[in-house]
């Protein structure tokens, strides 16, 4: 039977059967007065919940229609989640059908090839129905859940299918294919998931989004539901969302160590790289990992589960036991993939439709192809957003002349900083230091005199005065937690000469909260924290900066006087 003939026939049958079911359930309700009111109420609630939830469910189709899947809208302005493996099939531009019966042009935003997540944006409206995000860590085996989506691409009228089931397992670990499509800390459900459900929502019984359905155990019974499917937890996706919004190809993290279970059942460091932050923070071969990122670790799978929900670049708290003693550390997680390997995941899609010529006119303004990004348009948009927020603290672009900052060193004595466009100098009780962009900046980072403070302040000024133009390269990283219990911070990563500079912005006021310097040659980064803001001539400036090397605070400086000399021409 051809697929073409099957379609009309099937739809007829389906509609007829749905009618029968509807009629049957209506009859059943009226013919069974002994059904407890609570049960009828539960059913009515469920129907109402599904009716509400379905408005955010997307049927995604590729431009050729031969591929697709499902998705879920998570913001009024049309951001929607789906699977990475769905957008690999569709390319950068796709069509999204919503239950309102309309088809919306949709553009890729950011992807996470390891976690199998993609963020896309539906275009054309700012009042989409957005799903409410739930808390997937509260899910327990036995919870009622429902999955919605577009199985077998049935939803040609964009009305999503719904399947009901329970949570079969939580915190499941499913091995990757190679090192991609790894499902960590995922939810296992017995609601029917079939090809085409990919990227669709998993809702809890109250209609809150707790996961994105992405894979199922398909084996000898064929590529159909076998009552065993896996959803990426929404809590994992929340961690990655900031990075995805930035149009990036986001990487997962590595601790730099391989863990193994000992004969006595403890999880120990079996191998650890010499050059990784965990090693520098004191983690050694044979140490027992006790806690990682806030969760107790009893098995290697538990470790892999927690590691898999954290983007590369974040810092997480760890606790390890050595000789009966517990040690705690804050460790930065590094990228698990080499950039080229990661980028290849998107570049190698079979029928790449991100050639600008094939992209619909409506999508063209929202798509910018650039190596290393899923869609650089959204990176630029976020850079602009961060700079706009920063500008609220005062206008600095007229202050291109030298700055002089004086203050007190916490440990005693005076500090004087002179910052110019391409050079800077610093006087501290212990001596003077200078830097020039003509020379090797990496030397300034390791300066014995100021510990990197001068370079940090120099680059901070550069960001305020010149923005992205002051650097060789600048991109929006996404978000990371500013303190490990705290709010998320937008992060810009700038490159100048061979120094990488990461600016994290306080979400409350848009100002630079921390600045971190590192070079390709590994070693402890230099981190400066800005605090105690003060207003100087209508501009907000830090009243205190603290310098950190690794996990040690090496200096704290109270900044008292700022003087700007706008009259002198730049470059003198």
């Amino acid at each position, binding site marked *: 039977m051809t*697929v*073409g003939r099957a*379609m009309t026939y*099937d*739809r007829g*049958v389906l509609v007829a059967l749905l009618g029968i*079911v509807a009629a*049957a359930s209506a009859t059943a309700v009226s013919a069974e007065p002994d*059904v407890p009111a609570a*049960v009828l109420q*539960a*059913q009515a609630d469920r129907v109402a919940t599904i009716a509400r939830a379905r408005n955010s469910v997307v049927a995604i*189709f590729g431009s*050729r*229609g*031969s*591929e*697709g*899947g499902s998705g879920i809208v998570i913001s009024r302005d049309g951001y929607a989640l789906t*699977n990475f*493996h*769905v957008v690999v099939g569709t390319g950068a531009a796709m069509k999204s*059908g919503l239950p309102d*019966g*309309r*088809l919306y042009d949709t553009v890729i935003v950011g992807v996470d090839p390891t976690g199998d997540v993609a963020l896309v944006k539906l275009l054309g409206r700012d009042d989409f129905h957005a799903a409410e995000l739930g808390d997937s860590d509260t899910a*327990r*085996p036995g*919870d009622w859940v429902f999955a919605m989506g577009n*199985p*077998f*691409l049935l939803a*040609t009228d*964009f009305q999503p299918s719904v399947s*009901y089931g*329970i949570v*079969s*397992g939580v915190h*499941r670990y*499913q091995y990757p294919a190679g090192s991609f*499509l790894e*499902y960590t800390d995922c939810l*296992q459900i*017995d609601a029917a998931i*079939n*090809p085409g459900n*990919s990227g669709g929502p998993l809702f809890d019984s109250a209609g809150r989004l707790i996961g994105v359905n*992405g*894979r199922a*155990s*398909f*084996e*000898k019974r064929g*590529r159909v*539901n076998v*009552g*065993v499917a896996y959803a990426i937890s929404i809590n994992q996706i929340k961690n990655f969302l900031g990075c995805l919004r930035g149009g990036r190809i986001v990487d997962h993290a590595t601790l730099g160590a391989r863990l193994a279970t000992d004969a006595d059942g403890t999880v120990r460091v079996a191998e650890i790289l010499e050059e990784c932050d965990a090693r520098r923070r004191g983690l050694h071969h044979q140490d027992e990992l006790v806690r990682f990122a806030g969760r107790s670790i*009893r*098995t290697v*799978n538990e470790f892999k589960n927690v590691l898999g929900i954290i983007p590369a670049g974040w810092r997480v708290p760890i606790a390890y036991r050595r000789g009966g003693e517990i040690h705690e550390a804050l460790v930065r997680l590094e990228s698990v993939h080499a950039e080229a390997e990661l980028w290849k995941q998107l570049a190698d899609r079979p029928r790449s439709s991100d050639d600008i010529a094939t992209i619909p006119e409506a999508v063209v303004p929202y798509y910018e192809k650039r190596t290393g990004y899923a869609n650089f348009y959204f990176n630029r948009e976020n850079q602009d957003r961060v700079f706009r927020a920063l500008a609220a603290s005062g206008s600095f672009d007229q202050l291109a002349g030298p700055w002089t900052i004086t203050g007190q060193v916490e440990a005693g004595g005076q500090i004087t900083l002179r910052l110019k466009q391409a050079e800077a100098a610093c006087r501290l009780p212990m001596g003077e230091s200078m830097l020039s962009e003509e020379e090797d900046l990496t030397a300034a980072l390791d300066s014995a005199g100021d510990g990197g403070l001068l370079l940090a302040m120099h680059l901070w000024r550069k960001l305020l005065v010149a923005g992205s133009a002051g650097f060789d390269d600048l991109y929006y990283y996404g978000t990371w937690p500013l303190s490990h219990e705290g709010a998320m911070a937008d992060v810009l990563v700038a490159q100048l000469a061979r120094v990488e500079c990461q600016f994290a912005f306080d979400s409350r006021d848009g100002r630079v909260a921390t600045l971190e310097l590192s070079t390709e040659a590994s070693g402890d980064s230099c981190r400066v924290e800005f605090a105690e803001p003060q207003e100087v001539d209508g501009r907000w400036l830090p009243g205190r900066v603290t310098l950190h090397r690794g996990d040690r605070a090496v200096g704290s400086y109270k900044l008292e006087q700022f003087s700007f000399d706008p009259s002198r021409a730049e470059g003198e």
Partner: protein
Amino acid sequence: MPHCAPCAWRAGGVSPPVRDARGGSQPGANAPGSPIAPVRLLAVLVASAILSQSLAIVRAGADIHEQIAETQAKVVKIYGAGGLRALEAYQTGFLISAEGHVLTAWSHVLDSAVVTVTLDDGRRFESKLVGADSELELAVLKFDGSDLPHFDLSSLAAAEAGTRVLAYSNLFGVAAGNEPVSVQRGVVAARIPLSARRGIFESRFQGPVYILDAVTNNPGAAGGPVTNLAGELIAMLGKELKSAESNLWLNYAMPIDPLAPAVTRILAGAAEPLTAQTPTSKSSDGLDPRDLGIVLVPDVVQRTPAYVDEVRPNSPAARAGLLRGDLILFVDGQLVPSVKVLCELLAKAEHAASFKLTVLRDGNTVELTVQTPPLPSAERAG
């Protein structure tokens, strides 16, 4: 993992849905779908069953999670032989005593020198086979434990078509170590005789079974418990089988009430342990298969199945009715996992006596009585 696949839809030659000028959606072409209407009908029936069944869970109250967790603590993961294509080296079982008795399905997984049992809390034990019932295809394992949560086989719950159930198993080996096994929900659709096969062989177990409306009998699920919503044991998930009539994979469980007496017999020691006995040196006057006129297939692998390659005419084996192609399963109730073990068992058999052979022939088990020859008075030739 090969069994896990992303579930995007990809199909060739299907056009995208297009919108017409009037604003309505019009599928440009074809949603691929199952062309068989009855399958749809079944799906809808199942869907309606799920809707009605969901009501009961509402009624079961808020502590369903605790009850699931309590049941999960009684379920164990079993690791043994296998690992070849389509033969998983793992299955499921459940505790039936506080001291570490485990009821599970009799399968190739148990045919291993080391069968490991992993508890819900991650503890691992090596177990030994206490006994098995080849007709009911169940086995009882034992490891050294104490104070373990377990099902009480002396108080069994009844089930019938319409009973809502929860099925617990380590399907696909999803859970490892201390990870709780998977739980699925379903409804007993019927209690019927089993007419099924595995590969080309008919299932030895003939039922009755509960047919379930959920996909419960996945790889690794055999031996998992099925409970009602109160957590009472109803049945044990069976091995993966296809219906002999429809050739479709079955989702079924073996009601516990007919299994319980067999378990009691095994626990009472009435059934001989089926474990391969520790090999003993062949006594000089023991029997050899050749003494009985049996030529076995060449013993080329560690566990060569005891297939009969040839039966000598007018031999004790021929008189007993043994045929070429029979697979010898038991000697006097003792399991024969291999040619080697058969030779060891026969070596200990007595002359001028009789013993029972259980063989598999064309998918059926056949009992034969073999009269052993008297002790030879002279040296054997050759």
